[in-house]
């Protein structure tokens, strides 16, 4: 049930982001920061649980040998970290 509930704050966060885009000036203030602090654990919980399932869902063969589920899960977490670094860099770099 907790995993299902994570969808609610994250959906509201994305709708707030969409609403902010429609405004002339940003609506991201202290209230949004507080709400985001609440949302971040839910987002991390979703990421951990969803990416951990990759080993059960994705089945790969390399040189006719099945890739172990631990390697697949590790690759998903590596992808997550890599994407976060790149996006974080762009969010800061494009502000210059």
């Amino acid at each position, binding site marked *: 049930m907790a995993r*299902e509930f994570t*969808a609610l704050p*994250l959906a509201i966060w994305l709708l707030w*982001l969409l609403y902010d885009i429609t405004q002339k000036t940003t609506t991201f203030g202290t209230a949004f920061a507080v709400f985001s602090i609440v*949302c971040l654990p839910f987002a991390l919980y979703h990421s951990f649980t969803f990416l951990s399932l990759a080993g059960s869902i994705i089945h790969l063969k390399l040189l006719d040998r099945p890739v172990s589920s631990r390697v697949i899960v590790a690759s998903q977490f590596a992808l997550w970290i890599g*994407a976060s670094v790149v996006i974080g860099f762009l969010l800061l770099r494009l502000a210059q």
Partner: protein
Amino acid sequence: MSEELHLPARRGGRREAAGGDNGTSRPALAHLFWWFMFAQGGVIAAILLPVHILFQGILGPLGLVRVVSLHNPNIIGNPIVKLYLLVLIAVPFFHFAHRLRYLLVDFGVPAAKSLLAQVVFYGGAVLVIILTIYVLLTTAPISF
């Protein structure tokens, strides 16, 4: 409740290809589409959302770092940024729609399993896509 029980199912709970009784094999394309969108929404939310919440939601508004403004016409007008925002905002709603529907099921709302509930939740996800496209196309002209 297991993940298997939370996968988008065809009406009546059948997951196999349709037409099995009369010897023909027809792919369940609708099931394939919703399952694909559910999975992609989950991946997008898992990989992209935490860093956006951290930087744009917490560090930026608290003044700890200077984060890109989505009100800068040079940024929001870029077609790649618009496409990225469309994927970031809209696609997870296919995942969220399914999660929220099953949240109601877990709360003991049997109506959440009905066809009407499916239309409301997944239709809502489609509406968010349309709304996001409208917002992105009307807020700033596309510029390179």
